[in-house]
């Protein structure tokens, strides 16, 4: 019968294909029991060494160095022959590239406005208001819903 590879039985044994150190079934069981028995000591050690630090930090409730960071994802790159699958755009950090983030946020807000406002906005009314020189007014939703009954979809 072939002997099970084990670092405890033979210190010169080689790692398994997975990279793990080999251990036989018998030693695994024994070591398992010894580790289990040592757990209370481990808990006690951690509590003694770090308990006060952790409790004090939780009690104080402060987190120095915390601030807000704004980051916006840029447009995804166009697929190439080398990478034909869709990829996410790079993250642009406000702290590093303010103008680019402002541009991206404007694009997103503008898109949201367009999706929300333009489909419901009546062509005739918009045209007449523009003739009168009236600047765009954002309508509340209930009005937009009523208009959408007779306005063409854009």
């Amino acid at each position, binding site marked *: 019968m072939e002997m099970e590879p084990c*670092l*405890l039985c033979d*210190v010169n044994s080689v*790692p398994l294909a997975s*990279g*793990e*150190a080999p*251990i036989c079934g018998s*030693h*695994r069981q*024994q*070591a*398992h*029991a*010894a*580790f*289990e*028995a*040592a*757990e209370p*000591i*481990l*808990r006690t*050690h*951690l*509590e003694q*060494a*770090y*308990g006060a*630090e*952790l409790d004090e*930090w*939780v009690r104080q*409730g*402060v*987190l*120095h*160095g*915390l*601030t*807000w*960071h*704004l980051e916006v994802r840029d447009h995804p790159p166009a697929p190439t022959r080398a990478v034909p699958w869709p990829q996410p755009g790079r993250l642009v950090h*406000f702290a590093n590239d*303010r*103008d680019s*983030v*402002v541009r991206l*946020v*404007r694009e997103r*807000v*503008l898109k949201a*406005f*367009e999706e929300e*406002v*333009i489909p419901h*906005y009546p062509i005739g009314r*918009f045209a007449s208001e523009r003739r009168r020189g009236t*600047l*765009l007014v954002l309508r509340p939703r209930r009005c937009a819903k009523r208009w959408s009954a007779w306005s063409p979809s854009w």
Partner: protein
Amino acid sequence: MREALERLVAELVTVDRLSAALRSLPVDAAARTIIDGTVEGIAEPEGVVAALGVLSSGALTLAFVRQVSAGESILVDPVEVSEQVQGGSGEFIYGWWEIRTGLAEPARQWVELLEGRFPKARRR
């Protein structure tokens, strides 16, 4: 219509307004949420705390250990121990190595052998 929207958005979204908004957001409330999340073992707040370096790694390890009830095992399988040693896991860096001489055989010998195989775990 689009031009009007563009002008409106350009007025609303500026570098100065975004900067001011970021400065005025409630950091204290966010800090409390992150601290509570760390104690509850939620990964994202733990990452923030680790990145800021406001808490020692030993204390972070203890926060994790406290989530495991006394009846449950933290780390008992030798193969798992091997993986943790190789990765330099917190329990080993801040706990096991402190008590390894108190381990019964063959666990002590197993740990010492692994320590020799994976010196990374000895870093403190």
